[in-house]
């Protein structure tokens, strides 16, 4: 059993099902990101772990203790769950100083004054806040407020850290800084962390495991690299990645004795044995996997398919520029390096390596053929 264990947990708000029978087990020391668009149920899941929402169904175990069971009508209120939470708004109490905010959890536990004093000081020093303990939250910068919120959580020594989009209120530079801070925190304290975010970059850089959610269900639960390389379905493929994934519809057919993805403009041999032909498929390929071949240069060696596309827009950006090209009526993004010069209206050749394509069933959106871990 994991440190945090959700079994078939469900929650509806009126007619809206926020979380639909989610099961999830989190081991001690893991940093799990719940990732998904707004309204996917990730925050509700987190709040159910904290006890701030009462699920309609299922069971929740925390540190070996059953804290919720619909069947046996067990509800342990948040204050007895020993979880720590950082809220999106930080939820610092405006009428208390930094010290009082941080000391709150220890005061609730009725620790002796001297102990509170020294423990709060230790944590404040650790979070580089020692000079600010007499300040009020509104006298702090956003980053400092964020640190206070973290300090307030860790000083109470919860079994699990729960974080609800903690960085979304910071500007880009601070966010990068705080990401490093969170990484340090997790490493130093080996704290089990559940982290809700809609920012895939945050999830990919911070988490040891990512749970992608949509419409209250888990779409994929995997390590960051797997999530990026082998999205389990079209939703995940489209959701994860810094550029939108390139898509094109086609079918599976056998050509020259090999299973191929067939589209009027391009044929890409697939790796592995031929499976059922005629299947309606969607080909997905990451922009950085598409090889842009300027006219004169021969296509690179290796298996793959070639197609011609018209350049619609070019976004030069130094080392790694991007362009939008038109492929069979769809807009694709391609990434290309310094050496290549293209202009709007150019016809360019695109090479799709077999090893880099992902094929999804068009009816279910499920991945039909995992590409092998390429070079």
């Amino acid at each position, binding site marked *: 059993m994991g440190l945090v264990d959700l079994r078939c947990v469900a929650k509806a708000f009126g007619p809206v099902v926020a979380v639909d029978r989610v099961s999830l087990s989190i081991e001690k020391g893991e940093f799990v990101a719940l990732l998904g668009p707004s309204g996917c149920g990730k925050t509700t899941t987190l709040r159910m772990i904290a006890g701030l929402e009462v699920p309609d169904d299922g069971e929740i175990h925390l540190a070996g203790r059953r804290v919720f069971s619909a069947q046996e009508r067990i509800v342990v209120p948040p204050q007895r769950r*020993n979880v*720590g939470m950082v809220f999106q708004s930080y939820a610092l109490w405006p009428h208390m100083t930094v010290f009082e905010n941080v000391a*709150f959890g220890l005061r609730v536990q009725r620790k002796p004054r001297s102990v509170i004093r020294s423990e709060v000081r230790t944590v404040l020093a650790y979070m580089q806040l020692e000079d600010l303990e007499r300040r009020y939250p509104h006298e702090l910068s956003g980053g400092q407020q964020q640190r206070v919120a973290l300090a307030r*959580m*860790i000083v109470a020594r919860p079994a699990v850290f729960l974080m609800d989009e903690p960085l979304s209120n910071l500007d880009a530079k601070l966010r990068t800084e705080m990401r490093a801070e969170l990484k340090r925190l997790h490493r130093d304290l080996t704290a089990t962390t559940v982290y809700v975010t809609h920012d895939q970059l945050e999830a990919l850089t911070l988490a040891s495991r990512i749970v992608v959610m949509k419409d209250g269900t888990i779409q994929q639960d995997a390590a960051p690299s797997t999530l990026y390389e082998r999205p389990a379905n079209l939703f995940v493929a489209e959701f994860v990645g810094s550029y939108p994934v390139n898509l094109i519809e086609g079918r599976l057919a056998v050509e020259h004795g090999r299973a191929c993805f067939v589209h009027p403009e391009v044929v890409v041999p697939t790796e592995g044995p031929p499976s059922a032909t005629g299947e309606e498929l969607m080909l997905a390929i990451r922009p950085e996997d598409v090889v842009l071949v300027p006219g004169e240069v021969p296509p690179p060696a290796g298996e793959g398919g070639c197609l011609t596309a018209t350049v619609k827009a070019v976004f030069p950006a130094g080392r790694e520029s991007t362009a939008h090209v038109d492929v069979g009526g769809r807009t694709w993004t391609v990434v290309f390096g310094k050496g290549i010069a293209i202009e709007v209206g150019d016809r360019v050749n695109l090479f799709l390596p077999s090893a880099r394509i992902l094929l999804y069933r068009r009816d279910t959106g499920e991945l039909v053929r995992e590409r092998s871990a390429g070079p």
Partner: protein
Amino acid sequence: MSPLSQLRMEMRENRRSSARGLWRGAPRKLGTPQFLLSAVLLVVLAVFVIVPVGTIAVDTFVWQAGDVRLSREAQPGALTLFHWQRVFRSPLTGHLLTTPLVNSILVGVGTAALSLALGGLLAWFVVRTDMPFRRVAGALAVVPYMIPSYTLALAWLTLFKNQRIGGTAGLFQYLTGVAPPDWVAYGFFPTVIVLALHYYPFVFLLISNALASVDTSLEESAEVLGAPRSLVLRRITLPVILPAVLSGTILTFSRAIGAFGTPYFLGSPVRFFTLPTMIYSNIGMRFPSTANILVLVLIVLSTILIFVSQKMVGVRRSFVTISGKGFRHKPVELGRWKYPALAITGSVILFAAVLPFIMFFWQSVMEYAGTYSFSNFTSAFWLAPAGTRLTEGEPGLLRNPEVLRAAWNSVRLSATAALVAAVLGSLIGYVVVKGRGTVISKAIEQVSFLPYLIPSIAFGAIYLNVFIRPWGPIPALYGTFLLLVLTCAFRNLPFAARSGVSTMIQVSGELEEAAQTLGAGWFYRFRRVVFPLTIRGMIVGFSLVFMTTMRELSLIILLVTPQTRTLTTMTMRYQEQGFVQFANAITVVLVVMSVIGVWAIRKLGGQSGGS
């Protein structure tokens, strides 16, 4: 071992894993403090709001003990339609219902129109023009609402009364020698003027807020497109401030039809009755059922009005562009109209606030009422010892234990009622906001709004009807101070609850949840987090109710007894007995106390929100 690694160690062992927090069995929500609190509040609201209103409606269909005077058929306790027939279909209908109803509506329309004109004009002067002293005028323009409306009526009488009601004539006749005709001195005309002078600050505040929040770029872009100024006013500005105009007008109308003091003082001499004064007169004559039916008529009337206004304003509100930032307005240049505008504004404030106060004071130091000369000065009504002939034995105001008791009663009543209302309002705010979307939260919010639909005098009548006899475990409360407290607290609950809800909305739920995840139980979180964060809102609610109760007359007039008399009801008694000087002196005291109260509360509220 370094503190950090110690921290790490302790983190690894889950230290608070006892299972004492489990509760099994009972439906999950029922045990939470929040639910219990909601349930208690709902019961309280049912007892003090729903039941009294329900009882009054039922009672009108039942023969009352006193009805044997009215009809031989009366069998106390039995059902009857007699009262309804008496009010709606009898030779008395005209006197009891139709005339007061028509008068009320006319007074309402007149007051609303005049308030709109005064308030709208002043708002425009203050917000949008380059009139001199705009800021001062804006601050002073709301003062008339702070002094009780009936005191303005008394001031009117002091100025314009003729000898019809006996006693001396007013200042006007003293100065000019011409007796003002009855229609100037009493009845419809002065009632409307006085009510409008009292209520125009509503309209002024609403419209000036709307004008200030209109994005001037809307108007400017129309001007850039070449629209003439009149078109801009008609097509852009007016539609945008229309919700404020509508709600201000309807609010004033509904307040005016529910007003008691002013039509009572100004209408009685010429038997000009409105619904509230007719209710008072029927209770005075011990026809409670007739009064109760009129109460219901008044409630229905004001309910319709408020719903109409919410419908109209609700639909139109979507047009309003209100944003948090203030807009820099290019003021309209008044040119040579600058000083006339200032004169209009100044005279409204002068007539509504400054002059009455001077009049009261002057009146209170006259040996013979109505003689405005220095030789007529006396301090007897303020300072004379008991037994003075001039005051017919009554001691001067500042030595009169009855007056002092009434003053103490006023303060005590206002403070306790305000405290009850503020605490209830905060708790209501808490459960309503925390329970958003649940049935019980909606029920509490709706019921706490209900007293808003009931004009003051009607609310007093309703409480009189219910608490004059024992009811369930509650003993007969008539004549007790507690009844006055309850009446004032629950009548004003809508304001306190509104302020509670809006305060609670501003306190994000996450602030309490953060305390919860850190292990704080309900009482601890409420004491350390919720309460400190909402205390300022509670003070606002408290001061609203306190100030309203200080000047309250119509709400408690039916409920006071000699022991529980307040300054306001005492004024009325002296006025009725013809002790004009005393009435005026008390009014001076009341106004001074109100102003001090407002000032003290501001000061207090400002300090407590320090951090």
